[in-house]
């Protein structure tokens, strides 16, 4: 059996009158002898006819008024935001400033003491400083040595007395 070429793509274009007169003539010749292409054309055109009957959804009666009401609300919102139009453009700079401020706050020692544990920690550090200051105030090597051997300032004070 000899296989023949079916110009099916042309059938779609034929339906839309997008073929040249020569192409139309060639296609119509083919259609007159080819049952399967005729059937495709028939089905395509029936399908289009059915589609164009448009038994689709009806538009709600209040559709237009609802859209317009929604539009007015949008316009009102837009008018409110109009003064802030430059904000989005400044956003990177604002973010940078915020990061810097947060970093400063975070590293600020005084402001760090927020929890009871942090307060205790801070007190402990201060008392260590006090102790060091006392050691530096001890005048003689002896005193320093005794302090080291006895371990605590209180003991040393007691020995002195």
């Amino acid at each position: 059996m000899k296989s023949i070429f079916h110009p099916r793509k042309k059938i779609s274009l034929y339906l839309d009158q997008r073929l040249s007169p020569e192409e139309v003539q060639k296609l119509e010749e083919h259609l007159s002898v080819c049952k399967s292409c005729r059937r495709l054309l028939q089905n395509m055109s029936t399908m289009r006819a059915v589609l164009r009957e448009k038994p689709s959804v009806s538009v709600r009666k209040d559709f237009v008024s609802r859209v317009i009401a929604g539009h007015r609300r949008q316009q009102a919102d837009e008018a409110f935001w109009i003064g802030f139009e430059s904000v989005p453009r400044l956003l990177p700079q604002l973010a940078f400033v915020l990061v810097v401020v947060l970093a400063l706050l975070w590293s600020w020692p005084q402001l760090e003491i927020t929890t009871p544990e942090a307060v205790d920690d801070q007190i402990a550090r201060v008392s260590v400083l006090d102790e060091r200051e006392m050691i530096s105030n001890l005048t003689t090597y002896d005193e320093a040595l005794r302090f080291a051997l006895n371990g605590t300032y209180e003991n040393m004070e007691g020995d002195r007395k």
Partner: protein
Amino acid sequence: MEYYKDEYYDLIKASQRGDVKAAGKLVEAHAQAVHDFLFHLCGNRHLTEDLAQDTFLRALTALKHYQFRAPLRAWLFRIAINLYRDQRRRKIVRNIVSSYHDNEQEAENIVSNTSVQTPHAELERKERFAHLYKAMQKLPESLRTVIIMRDLQELSYEEITQVLHWRLGTVKSRLFRARKELAELLSDFWEEK
């Protein structure tokens, strides 16, 4: 780009200047086309109503950017498609089985709600539409979109290239594929008549 003189030119210009009454007329003039378009795209009545309303709200806000490069109708379809796609992305978590069932039911409702002709012709018309409707939902979105634009909304090939940003050759070949697939899906039913 070519300057497209829309038949609603004056209304569009007035709306762009902020004339709400003109905007209302524009919505009224295009409401049915947008509903039809969305309905055939998504196959669900309630979703169609929601998306149609969102389409017009977005369109009215963006109207100042409309430049008459394609008919307003085609421009509205483009907004509608984008909204439909967004919605579908969000829908992924929803139960597909139940929505399929809803759509089946929807097809029945639509065919039973259409106008009455002679009983036999009317019945046949309903059946044909129900079959077309079901077949349509089986097409991939791009094929469904192009066939709705061409065969239902009667946009020209050139208008479709502008709305969908496809090349003319792509429009032609996808339209052919859409019609061929629909014809195949429907041939069993239609040809025995």
